[in-house]
C-alpha cells in the first residue's frame, strides 16, 4: 500500500488507551487508523493462551479504574464487556486463620474483630473518608490537568480547583495534603492498630511503584486504588469475562463499529515529520501512512526517542524526557493448575478464593521486600497479589482446571547486575514466587501444568512497557497532573505539531482507566484540532 489514503488520525499502539481514543475519534466521524505491533490488540490488557484451553490475563489482571463514562459512551456492554466483581480480599496467614474482607460490612466486622475490635469499628469509617477524598480527586481524572504555572491563561481551572480545595474545610484540606504526601503506613496508622489488617491495605499504596509502604507519597497511590468503581460501587474490583483481553476486544469492537480501521502486526518504525510537524508513520515493513494528526499510545520515551528521534526535538525537551522516570518494579507469574490450590489457613474451596489474595503478612514483610529491591535484587519473599479467575469465569480454563495469576513485587528492572541479568534470573524469580506461595498452599508446586514468568525485561520487550513500568512512567508526585510527562506538555500535545500523546504517560496516568485516551480525543475534537 502506498500513501494514497490520507487519514484524519493515525494512532500508534493498540493498548486500551489507543483503542479508546480511536473509538471516540471514529465516533465523531473522523477517519481513524490504529496500528498495533503485535498480533493481538490490548497492549498490556490482553488474554493469551500458552497451554491449550488455559487463558492467561498475561499482564493486567483485574479491572476497576476503567471510567464508567467510557463504558457508557462506547456502549461496551453491547460489545461484549462483562465484568464479574471480586468476591472479597483474602490475606492468608502462616499462623492463624488469615483475614477476609467482604463487601458486606457485617461480615468484615466479624473478621477484623478477631484482630482488633476497635479496628473493626473504624473500618467502615475509613472507607467513607477515603470515598470522600476520592470524590474530590475523581473529577480531576476526567479533565485535563489544571496547570497553575500557566497563569493567567488557565486561571479559571486553577481557581476552580482552589475553590474546591477550600471547600474541604481546614480538616479536609489537611487530610488532602496528608494523602498526597504521607506514606500508606502513616495514613493507616492513624486509623488502625492491627498490623495484619494494615499490611494488606497498605499494599494498594505500592502497586506499580518503586516505593515501599513506608515511603512518603504512597498514601496517594492507595487512594488511587480506592477510586475504582464498577457501576458506581466504590472499591469494587472485578475480572472481565474471558480475561482482561476481553476489555480490549470490546473497545476494539466499539471502535470498528464506529468506522475505525485497525491493523495488527503493523509495527511503526518512525513517526515522520516535516518542518516540525507530524505527517504520518513509516512501518517496519516499509508501508507508509499519512494523517492530519498522529497520536501515540506508547509511552513518552518510546514515542519521542524511538519514533520521532532526538534530532527533531529541542535539547531542553530531550532532557526532560530523558529524566522522566520509569523503573519498573513488578513482575507477573501466570500458572496453569491441575487443581485448585488449598490454603492451609482456610482449607477447601470457598468463596474466599474468588477474590484477590494478598501475600502480605505484615508491614515489616512488605518493607523488607522493598529494601531488597532498592539495593538491586528481586524480593526473596515478595508481595504477591493473586487471583484465580477460573473460579468465576469457566471460559478461561478447561473443566476442573484453573488459571492463577500472580502479580509480584518487587522485581526491579534495574538489577544490581543490570537489566540484562533478568534473562539469567527469570526462572529463579519464578521459583521464588512459587516457593513463597507453597508456604501458604502446600502442594501447589505439584499442581502446576504450565508457568509463564514475566520479568520487567519481558514486559519491556514483549509489551513495549519501557523499563517494565506498568504505568508508562512512575506515578510519583513529580510526574503527575500538570507535570506528566513534563511541565508545559501535560495536555496531550507535544512540541511536535500534530503529534499527540493519548496513553498512561499523560495525565491522569496508568491503570486500566482509559482516561488519557478519552481526554486526548476530547481535546482534539473540542478544540478543533481535528
Amino acid at each position, binding site marked *: 500500500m502506498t500513501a494514497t489514503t490520507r487519514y484524519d488520525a493515525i494512532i500508534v499502539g493498540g493498548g486500551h488507551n489507543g483503542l479508546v481514543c480511536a473509538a471516540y475519534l471514529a465516533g465523531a466521524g473522523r477517519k481513524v487508523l490504529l496500528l498495533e505491533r503485535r498480533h493481538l490488540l490490548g497492549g498490556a490488557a490482553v488474554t493469551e493462551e500458552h497451554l491449550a484451553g488455559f487463558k492467561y490475563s498475561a499482564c493486567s489482571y483485574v479491572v476497576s479504574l476503567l471510567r464508567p463514562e467510557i463504558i457508557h459512551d462506547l456502549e461496551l456492554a453491547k460489545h461484549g464487556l462483562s465484568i464479574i466483581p471480586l468476591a472479597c480480599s483474602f490475606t492468608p496467614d502462616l499462623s492463624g486463620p488469615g483475614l477476609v474482607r467482604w463487601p458486606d460490612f457485617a461480615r468484615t466486622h466479624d473478621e477484623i474483630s478477631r484482630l482488633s475490635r476497635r479496628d473493626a469499628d473504624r473500618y467502615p469509617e475509613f472507607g467513607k473518608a477515603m470515598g470522600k477524598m476520592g470524590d474530590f480527586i475523581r473529577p480531576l481524572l476526567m479533565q485535563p490537568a489544571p496547570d497553575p*504555572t500557566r*497563569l493567567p491563561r488557565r486561571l479559571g481551572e486553577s481557581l476552580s480547583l482552589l475553590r474546591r*480545595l*477550600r471547600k474541604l*474545610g*481546614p*480538616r479536609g*484540606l*489537611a487530610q488532602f*495534603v*496528608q494523602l*498526597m*504526601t*504521607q506514606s500508606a503506613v*502513616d495514613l493507616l*496508622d*492513624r486509623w488502625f492498630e492491627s498490623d495484619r489488617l494494615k499490611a494488606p491495605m497498605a499494599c494498594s499504596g505500592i502497586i506499580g511503584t518503586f*516505593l515501599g509502604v*513506608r*515511603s*512518603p*507519597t504512597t498514601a496517594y497511590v492507595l487512594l488511587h486504588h480506592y477510586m475504582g468503581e464498577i457501576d458506581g460501587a466504590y472499591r469494587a474490583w472485578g475480572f472481565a469475562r474471558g480475561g482482561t483481553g476481553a476489555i480490549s476486544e470490546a473497545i476494539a469492537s466499539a471502535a470498528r463499529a464506529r468506522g475505525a480501521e485497525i491493523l495488527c502486526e503493523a509495527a511503526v518504525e518512525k513517526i515522520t515529520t516535516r518542518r516540525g510537524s507530524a505527517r504520518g508513520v513509516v512501518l517496519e515493513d516499509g508501508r507508509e501512512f499519512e494523517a492530519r494528526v498522529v497520536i501515540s499510545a506508547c509511552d513518552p520515551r518510546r514515542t519521542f526517542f524511538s519514533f520521532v528521534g532526538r534530532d527533531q526535538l529541542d535539547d*531542553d525537551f530531550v532532557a526532560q524526557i530523558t*529524566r522522566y*522516570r520509569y523503573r519498573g518494579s513488578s513482575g507477573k507469574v501466570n500458572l496453569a493448575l491441575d487443581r485448585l490450590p488449598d490454603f492451609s489457613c482456610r482449607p477447601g474451596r470457598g468463596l474466599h478464593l474468588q477474590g484477590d489474595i494478598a501475600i502480605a503478612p505484615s508491614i*515489616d514483610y512488605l*518493607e*523488607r521486600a522493598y*529494601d531488597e529491591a*532498592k*539495593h538491586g535484587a528481586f524480593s526473596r519473599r515478595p508481595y504477591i497479589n493473586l487471583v484465580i479467575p477460573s473460579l468465576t469465569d469457566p471460559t478461561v480454563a478447561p473443566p476442573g482446571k484453573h488459571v492463577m495469576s500472580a502479580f509480584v513485587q518487587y522485581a526491579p528492572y534495574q538489577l544490581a547486575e543490570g537489566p540484562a541479568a533478568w534473562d539469567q534470573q527469570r526462572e529463579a524469580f519464578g521459583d521464588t514466587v512459587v516457593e513463597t506461595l507453597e508456604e501458604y498452599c502446600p502442594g501447589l508446586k505439584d499442581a502446576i501444568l504450565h508457568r509463564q514468568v514475566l520479568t520487567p525485561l519481558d514486559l519491556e520487550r514483549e509489551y513495549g512497557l519501557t523499563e517494565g513500568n506498568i504505568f508508562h512512567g512512575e506515578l*510519583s*508526585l*513529580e510526574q503527575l497532573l500538570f*507535570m506528566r510527562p*513534563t*511541565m*508545559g506538555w501535560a495536555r496531550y500535545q507535544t512540541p511536535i505539531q500534530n503529534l499527540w500523546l493519548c496513553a498512561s504517560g499523560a495525565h491522569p496516568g496508568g491503570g486500566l482507566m482509559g482516561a488519557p485516551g478519552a481526554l486526548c480525543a476530547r481535546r482534539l475534537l473540542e478544540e478543533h484540532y481535528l
Partner: protein
Amino acid sequence: MIDVVVIGAGINGLTAATMLARAGLAVEVVEARPVLGGMAAREPIADGYLAPVGIYETTGVRPWMLNAVGIALSPELPRLHGSGGVVVDLAQRRVEGVDPTDAAAFEDLVELVTRIGPLFWRLMDHPPIDPVASGWRSLWAAARVGLSARRLGFEALRELLRAAPMPLADFLDERFESNALKGLLAAEALKYRFAGAKSPTTALDLLAALVYQSAGIVPACRLLERLVAAAKHHELRVRCGVRVSSVNFDGSRATGVTLSDGMRIEARSVLSTVHPRQTLCELISPRYLPAALRDDLRAWRSQGSTARLDLVLAQPLRDNAGRPLSRFALSDNLSELERAYDQGKHRQSTLEQLVLTGQQFDLDGGFADRGHDAHVVCLTVQHVPSDRVVDENALRAAVRQRLSAIDANLAQHLRAERFTSVAALAQGFALDGGQFEHGELSLDQQYFMRPQIRCASYRAPLRGLYLGGNGSHPGRGFNGAAGALAANAMLADR
C-alpha cells in the same frame, strides 16, 4: 500580672522574649533545665571542657531576626569536607576533588539554589498562608508568594516543583557522578531526618539546607551567647530549673501558668516554645481543646533517629593539606546511607554503615575553661534507633574507626568523649520521640500544616496562647525564626 510568660529558654524562647521585652512588654521566661539555652546550652564533657549536648550549629540566621533582638553577628560559610577529598565550598560556590563535569553540575545546583532563594525566604521569613482564610490580608500574602514563584522563571520553577516531591537520591543521580559528593550532600541534608535518600520528598531537604547554609552558619553557642547578653540587657526575668506544669485558662483565655513547685504566674498571654504535643496535650486540660485536634496531634511524627557524640581532642582533625577541619559529612555513597536508614527503620544497630556529620571547634568557641588546650568535635550520628539500647561502647568504637580515616592517630589524641543517645536527647529536652526539630520536617508537617492546620499561625485555638517552638513554621535551622514569628503574631494581636 505580667504581659507574657514564655515557656522555654532555648533559642526560640530567648528570641521571642527579647523581642517582646523590646516592645515594652513585661515578660518572664520559665526554663525547666538549670541553664539557659535549651538544646544549645553547653554542658561539661569532662573536666574543663564544654560542648552543647544538642545543637551545635544554626543556619538561616537572617538579618531581620538579628535586628529584631538587637544583636550583631556575621554568619560564616565554612568549607564542608566529605569522604575521598571532596570539599564543598559554598562561599566560593564550588566543589573540590571531583571531575570537571561534576564541578560544573555543582555550580548549576548552586545557581538553582540562588534562584530559588528569594521564594524560600518569602515562605520562611513570614507566617504560613492560611489556605482556608478569607480576607484581603491572606489574599495579599498568597499573591506575594505567587509573585515570588513567578519571578523564578519557567525553568527554575519547573526544577523546584519537580524536585520538591522527589527522592534525594534521584535528584543527585541526575546531576552527579561522584559517590563521595552525593554521599556528602545527602548526609548533610538529612542529618536530623528519619528518612533515607531514596525516600520521596527528601530532595527538598537538600535545597532547603543549601538555601539555609548559603545564608551562613553560626555556631549555636555564639548565637546563644548574644541572645543571653541581649536578654540581660533588657533585664529579662528568667526562672531556671523549674517546670511549667499547666497553662491556666479563664473561660477560653490564657491567664498564665502554674509551675511544678505550685507557684502561679499570672500573665495576659503565654508563648510556648516546647514540643507542640506537650504544650497542647499535656499543659492544657483536655476540656479546652477539641478532641479532633488532640487526635491529630497524637499522629504528629517526631520520632528521632539522630544521636550526638562529642569528642575532646588534643590535636585537631586535619584535612589532607594539614589544615584543621571545620565541618564534615562522612558517607561514602548513597547506598551506604540508605542501608543505614534501613537499619534504623528496622530498629537494628547501625554500626556497619555509620553516617556522620560534624563540626570541629577551636578554643575561641568557648568550649574549654581557661588554661585548657584542646579541640572539641561535635558529631551527629544518623539512624541510631531510639527505642532499643544501642551498645554505646561499640558505637563509640565504630565512630572512632570511621574518623580514623581522617586522622589515623585519633585514639592517641582523644581526651574525652560524650555520647548522647536519641532517648537521652528526648528525655533531656522533652523532645517527645527525640526529633531535634520537634517534629519531622516532612511535606505533610510543614508550612500551614505545622504543627496543625488550625494553629499554624502561631496562635493556638485558645485565646492568649501562642506556639513559637520549632514545631511551628519554619522549624528549620535552629535559628529562632519560629520564636520571632510567634512574637510578631502576639504583638500584632495587641
